[in-house]
């Protein structure tokens, strides 16, 4: 794997002169701190740009402490993504323990706007760019109608802040005691605002002309906007605290879910194992089954649909493991959907696994490879082997369940056996059902499909 150069996250350092901005920046960029500080001072002398930049970073960049709280939820190991992404379709098993008091689902800002991971930053940045553009335009000599722009900006700013506020309260479920549906809530809010505005307008217009009303309205909006700007840093801070807290709560929910799962599965199994400690066979069987279940839970790929051929083969292997207490290792390459014929392949493979687990020694290896042309399944054990030709003809297991079944569905089966072990090879052509019957044995089988045989009981 090609590891990209590691870059520490941008956080305000605790090793600081003022607010740790320069040290954090230097750490993030991998530059010497002294250089960054000097650069900042020079920039500050150049028309105050450095000061503005510094203040901006001060507000927007979290301290190392806050950041570590936030990122504690990010997985440290590749196992963790599977753990920390709560399964979507599953009932919240841990609901009893925690997870009360969370009105809205912990789908945060980022998940609700998947294409816009830094909406807040982008919005503020766009605003600043706009302001800068206007300033430059004025410097160049363009006539910008500041008289209208400023009030408009104030109104927009006020609206944005109000919206921000509303959004956050709604999500945190603080004010949302009377929470009807979201749409209803928004409608109510809009209606209320409209009423208030209308009321104010009526009141003011009763005592004077429309012009005065407008002026008064503009003035008050401007004042409100100014106040909002002054309060913005605190608002942002407050918001960040809330977000941190919300993340913490989401983590607690995840923990609860993991705990519930571990309790339901692993702890129960461990208790069972302790009670059956005397029976080695049972202990191994329980441990294998639990391992399989836990692996399925940790490593499953949520994007993959269930019920594919490889899943069915793994299920069959699990059944054999459970019933016979014999390890069955499954490796699959490629996959395809199920139909009557692939079901036959699964059944034949299952029969082969049962035979291998019953008569073979050591672990059973199963390999499934699906290509565009065919599905091949191999079942190998390390038993003492047998002579497929010497099996009495009245044993139905191998002859019917494996050979016959494969042949009936246009596939082939071959068995190789030596003192080192036995391998059953199943092949099912996938294109065109009219496959040659009994022809071919994968090129290197030692016994053809018609050598009906069965392992000795």
């Amino acid at each position, binding site marked *: *794997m*090609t*590891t990209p150069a*590691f870059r520490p996250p941008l956080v305000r350092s605790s090793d600081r002169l003022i607010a740790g901005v320069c040290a954090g920046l230097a750490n993030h960029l991998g530059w010497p701190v002294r250089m960054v500080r000097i650069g900042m001072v020079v920039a500050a002398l150049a028309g105050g740009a450095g000061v503005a930049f510094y203040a901006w970073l001060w507000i927007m960049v979290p301290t190392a402490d806050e950041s570590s709280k936030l990122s504690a939820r990010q997985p*440290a*190991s*590749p*196992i963790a*993504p*599977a753990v920390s992404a709560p399964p979507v379709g599953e009932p919240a098993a841990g609901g009893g323990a925690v997870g009360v008091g969370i009105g809205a689902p912990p789908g945060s800002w980022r998940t609700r706007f998947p294409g816009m991971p830094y909406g807040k930053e982008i919005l503020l940045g766009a605003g600043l760019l706009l302001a800068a553009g206007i300033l430059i335009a004025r410097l160049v000599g363009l006539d910008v109608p500041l008289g209208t722009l400023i009030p408009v900006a104030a109104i927009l700013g006020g609206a944005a802040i109000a919206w921000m506020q509303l959004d956050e309260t709604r999500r945190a479920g603080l004010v949302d005691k009377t929470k009807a549906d979201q749409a209803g809530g928004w409608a109510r809010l809009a209606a209320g605002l409209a009423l208030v505005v209308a009321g104010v307008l009526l009141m003011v217009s009763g005592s004077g002309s429309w012009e005065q009303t407008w002026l008064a309205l503009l003035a008050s909006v401007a004042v409100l906007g100014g106040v909002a700007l002054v309060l913005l840093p605190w608002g942002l801070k407050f918001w960040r605290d809330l977000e941190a807290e919300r993340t913490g709560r989401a983590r607690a929910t995840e923990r609860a879910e993991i705990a519930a799962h571990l309790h339901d599965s692993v702890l129960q199994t461990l208790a069972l194992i302790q009670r059956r400690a005397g029976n080695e066979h049972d202990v191994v069987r329980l441990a294998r089954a639990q391992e399989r279940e836990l*692996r399925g839970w*940790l*490593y499953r790929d949520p994007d993959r649909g269930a019920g594919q051929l490889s899943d069915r083969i793994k299920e069959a292997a699990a059944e054999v493991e459970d019933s016979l207490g014999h*390890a069955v*290792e499954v*490796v*699959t*390459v*490629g996959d395809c959907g199920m139909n009557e014929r692939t079901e036959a392949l699964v059944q034949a493979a299952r029969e082969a696994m049962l035979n291998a687990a019953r008569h073979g020694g*050591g*672990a059973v*290896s199963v*390999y499934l*490879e699906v*290509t565009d042309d065919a599905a091949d399944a*191999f079942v*190998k054990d*390390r038993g003492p082997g047998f002579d497929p030709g010497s099996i009495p003809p009245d044993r139905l297991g191998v002859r019917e369940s494996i050979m016959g079944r494969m042949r009936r569905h246009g596939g082939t089966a071959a068995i190789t056996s030596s003192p*080192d072990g036995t*391998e059953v090879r199943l092949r099912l052509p996938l294109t065109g059902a009219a496959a040659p019957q009994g022809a071919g044995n994968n090129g*290197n089988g030692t016994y053809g499909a018609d050598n009906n045989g069965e392992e000795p009981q």
Partner: protein
Amino acid sequence: MSNQPLGKGAESVQSTATRVVIVDDHAIFRSGLKADLDPDILVVGEAGTVEEAVAVIAAARPDVVLLDVHLPGGLGGGGRDVLAGSAALLGITRFLALSVSDAAEDVVSVIRAGARGYVTKSISGAEISDAVRRVAGGDAVFSPRLAGFVLDAFGTAPADIADDELDRLSARELEVMRLIARGYSYKEVAKELFISIKTVETHVSAVLRKLQLSSRHELTRWAAERRLL
């Protein structure tokens, strides 16, 4: 995978004992593994975190490091960070990855970081001893599951031009990988294909090299899908 790899065994033992360092964050597992290893394998150091591991490996300069994929410390990359931290030793010391996980991203990421093989923790003491000797001898150790991943990533259609193309497996390499995925030991693969064990090892090493160096579109895409890049 418990069938793998059997075969060569004693022939590859060098005159001196193989010196290994065990890196795993579970002390119980370390001591169990130590007890399970054959007597000609000498454990010269143990470590439980990335930092400890890098220090111990640099000090002990072992032949082989048995490296757990999931480790605390470092940059959060576990075994990969140990490999990155020991990059200077990669020519001398060989790494055999060891994990309970059989997730593709874990396996492929340590292999691509420089490990010479990958085995699961459930394999027996004799098998892991054999794997250690094999890795110490410069060969690669493929479990059936790793072979499956390789086939998955490189596709199952053979390359037209053999051997030197990084992005494809030759027909022979595919055959070897398939047999390993089917649970064959190197010896059995050699017998099945009528070639020598040495040739099997050459093929496996070639596949390992391709797995480490290939920028094959499918491999990178496959890795990206699994959040590897």
